C-alpha cells in the first residue's frame, strides 16, 4: 500500500527546535556525561582518569549508607506524595463548598506556593529547634518524647511534614480548578440520584478528578525525589545517622562536597534508572485506570 505523503515543510521542525535544543543541552548531554563518568575513576581536577567498568556501581551498591538512603527515599517519596495529595484533595473539596469568604480561604491555602523549598526547610527547622522551637517544645510539653536530633523516625516526621506542607498548596490549586471544571449539570444530576455526599464524591467527583490526581502523583513523586533537596539540606542534612538523606542529597554530598566524580555519577545513573522504571510503571499501569 502506498502511504499518502504530504509535502514536507521545515516550519514545524523550526518550532520544536528550541525545545529539542534545550533538552539536548540540559538533559541529554549531561546525562550522557554522567553515564560516561560513572565508568571512570577520575580525580577531581581531571588530571588522571581510568576506565573501571562497574567498579563505581559495585562500590555504591555495597555501601550501607547508600542502601539506607535508597530505602529512605522510597518511604519518604511515598509518604510525601500520598499525604500531600490526600490533604490537598480534602482541603480543595471543603474550600469548594465554602460560600462565604471563599476567596480568603482559597488565597490563604495557596499562599504556601510562593515559598521556596530551602525557605520551607528553614522555617520548619526553626520551629523544631530543640532550644526555642515552638513545635518542638509543644510536642514535648504534651507528653510525647520527641527528639528529631537523635531519633530517626522523629526526624523523618519533621522532613515529611515540611515537604508536605510545602506541596499541599500546589496540589490544592490543581484540585480546586479540577473541581471547578466538573460541569454543574453532572453534580446536580448526581444529587438527585443519590443522597449520600460521600458516595457521590467517590463515584462521581473522584473519578472525574482522576486525570488531575494522576498528573499530581507524577509531579509529587518527582518533587519528593528531587526538589526536596533544599529542604533536607537546610533542615537535617541527612541526620541522624544518614536516616533522612535522600538519594539526591547523597549524590550532592559525595559529588559536590566530596569531589568523588565517578562514585556520584554512578549514583546519579542509578537514580535515573529508578526514576525511569517508576515513570514507565506509572504510565503503563496506573494511567490505564484514568479516564480522560
Amino acid at each position, binding site marked *: 500500500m502506498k502511504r499518502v505523503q504530504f509535502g514536507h515543510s521545515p516550519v514545524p521542525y523550526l518550532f520544536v527546535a528550541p525545545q529539542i535544543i534545550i533538552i539536548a543541552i540540559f538533559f541529554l548531554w549531561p546525562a550522557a556525561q554522567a553515564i560516561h563518568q560513572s565508568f571512570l575513576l577520575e580525580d*577531581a581536577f581531571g*588530571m588522571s582518569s581510568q576506565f573501571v567498568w562497574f567498579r563505581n556501581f559495585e562500590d555504591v551498591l555495597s555501601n550501607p549508607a547508600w542502601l539506607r538512603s535508597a530505602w529512605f527515599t522510597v518511604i519518604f517519596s511515598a509518604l510525601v506524595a500520598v499525604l500531600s495529595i490526600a490533604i490537598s484533595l480534602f482541603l480543595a473539596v471543603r474550600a469548594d463548598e465554602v460560600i462565604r469568604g471563599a476567596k480568603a480561604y482559597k488565597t490563604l491555602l495557596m499562599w504556601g506556593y510562593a515559598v521556596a523549598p530551602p525557605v520551607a526547610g528553614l522555617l520548619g527547622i526553626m520551629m523544631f529547634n530543640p532550644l526555642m522551637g515552638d513545635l518542638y517544645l509543644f510536642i514535648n510539653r504534651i507528653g510525647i518524647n520527641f527528639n528529631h536530633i537523635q531519633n530517626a523516625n522523629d526526624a523523618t516526621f519533621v522532613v515529611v511534614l515540611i515537604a508536605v506542607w510545602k506541596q499541599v498548596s500546589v496540589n490544592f490549586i490543581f484540585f480546586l480548578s479540577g473541581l471547578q471544571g466538573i460541569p454543574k449539570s453532572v453534580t446536580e444530576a448526581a444529587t438527585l440520584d443519590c443522597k449520600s455526599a460521600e458516595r457521590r464524591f467517590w463515584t462521581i467527583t473522584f473519578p472525574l478528578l482522576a486525570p488531575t490526581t494522576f498528573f499530581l502523583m507524577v509531579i509529587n513523586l518527582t518533587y519528593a525525589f528531587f526538589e526536596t533537596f533544599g529542604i533536607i539540606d537546610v533542615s537535617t542534612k541527612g541526620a541522624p545517622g544518614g536516616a533522612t538523606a535522600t538519594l539526591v542529597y547523597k549524590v550532592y554530598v559525595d559529588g*559536590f562536597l566530596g569531589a568523588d566524580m565517578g562514585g556520584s555519577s554512578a549514583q546519579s545513573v542509578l537514580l535515573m534508572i529508578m526514576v525511569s522504571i517508576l515513570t514507565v510503571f506509572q504510565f503503563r499501569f496506573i494511567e490505564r485506570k484514568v479516564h480522560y
Partner: protein
Amino acid sequence: MFRKTLMAAAALFAMANSANATTEITWWHAMDGALGDVVNHIADDFNKSQSEYKVVPVNKGGYEDTMTAGIAAFRAKNQPNIIQIFDAGAATIINAKGAVYPVQDLLEKYGAKFDINDYIPGVRYFYADSKGKMIGLPFNSSTPLLYFNKDALAKAGIQNPPKTWQEFEEMAPKLKEAGYQGLAESHSPWIFFENFMSRHNLQLATANNGYDSTDVKLLYNNENLKNHWKKVKEWKDEGYFGYYGRAWGANQDAFLQQKAAMWLGSSGSFGGLRKSASFDFGTSTLPYWKGVGDAPKSTFIGGAALFAFTGHSEEENKGVAKFFEFLTKPQTQYYWHKETGYVPITNAAYELAKKDGYYKESPDAEVGIEQLSEPGGKWTKGYRLGYYVQIREVIYAEVDKMMNGDETVDQAFDVIETEGNKLLKRFHDTYSN
C-alpha cells in the same frame, strides 16, 4: 562559529586588560560576612601598596562551595590564581598531580625569602608534602578550644575550667546541680576524633598519618579513642554532656543560651561569641586524658590554606608570590589575627602581637596560639587523607548512632573503620596513577 566569537571576545578582553597595565590576580575564598570584609580590606591594602598587581577577592560561598567552584573552573581551564581550600579537602587538591604550584617553590622562584621555620610549629607542616615542602599557605588557622561560662562555673563553686577530662568528670555533677549541662561540642569529627589523636600524640592513620602515601588506613578504631567515646556517652546519659546533633550552630547555641556551661568550639569563634554572648566567658585549652598517650601535646590546626593554581602566566604567578609575601608580613597577620580571632601563622606576627600588648588587653586571644605552640610530638603535625569529607560524614553519622543508642561505641567504630578504609582505598585507586 560560536567558538570563534568566544575567542574573539576573549582576545578583546585580554587586550583591554593589558591596556590597563596592572595584572589581575583572582582569589576565590570562603570567607563571608564579617570575615569577608576583613579579606577585602587586606586585598585593598595590598592593591594600594603597589601598582603592578591587583588582587580581586571573590567569595564563593562556604568551604565546600569554594572547592567545588575551583574544581569546575579548573576543569573548564578557567581557574582563579588563588583558591582557599579547607583542611579536609587538602588531600584532594594536593594529590591531583600538577594542579597546584607549591607555595614554597613559588615564593623561592620569585625572590621572596622563604624559611619554613618562620612559621609557628603547629601550622608549619599541615599543608606540606611528606618531605616537608610547603604546598599550601596556611591562611585562616584555628584550633579547638574550651569556652566556659564564668557565671555558671562560679554558681557551681568551681574555680578554674578543667585542664583534663578527669577534672571535668569531677565538676560535671556540680554543674548539673547548679542547673547546667557540663559541656556541649561542635564538630565532633574535628575535635573528638582528629584533635583527640593529636592532643594525646596518637597515630591517626598509617603511612605517617597519610603524608607518605595514599595507600593508607585509619587508626581511629583504638581503645583510647573508644574509651573516650564510652565516657562521652556515659556523660550524655547522666546529663553532663549535651548533644544537639551535627550542626555547629545548634551546639554553640546551647552554650550561648546558658544550657551548657562549657562548649568546645574553634579559636576562630571567639570574635562572634564576644558579640552575641550575654554573659562573661573565658577560654581554655582543649582538655585531655591524663595518662593517655603522652598528653598534653599540641593540637592540629583547622581552617584552610591558600593554593596557587597552575596554568597561569609567569606575570600572574609572580603577582601571586608578591601577594603571599604581603599576606605573611607580621603587620598583615597581626591585623588578621586581631580582626578574626584566627591565629597568626608566623612567629614574627606572634611576637608583634605580644609586643603590642594585645594579649594583655584580651588574654583569651592567646590561648589558641599557645595551644598550637605546645610541644609537638610525632603525630601532631597533621594528617593527609583522601575523601576525608566523606569520612567525616561517616563519623557524623556514627556519632549520631552512638549518642541515640542505635549502636554501641564498638559497633560504631567498626563501621567508621570499614567504611573509612573503603573510601581511602577508592581515593588511592583514583589518585595513585
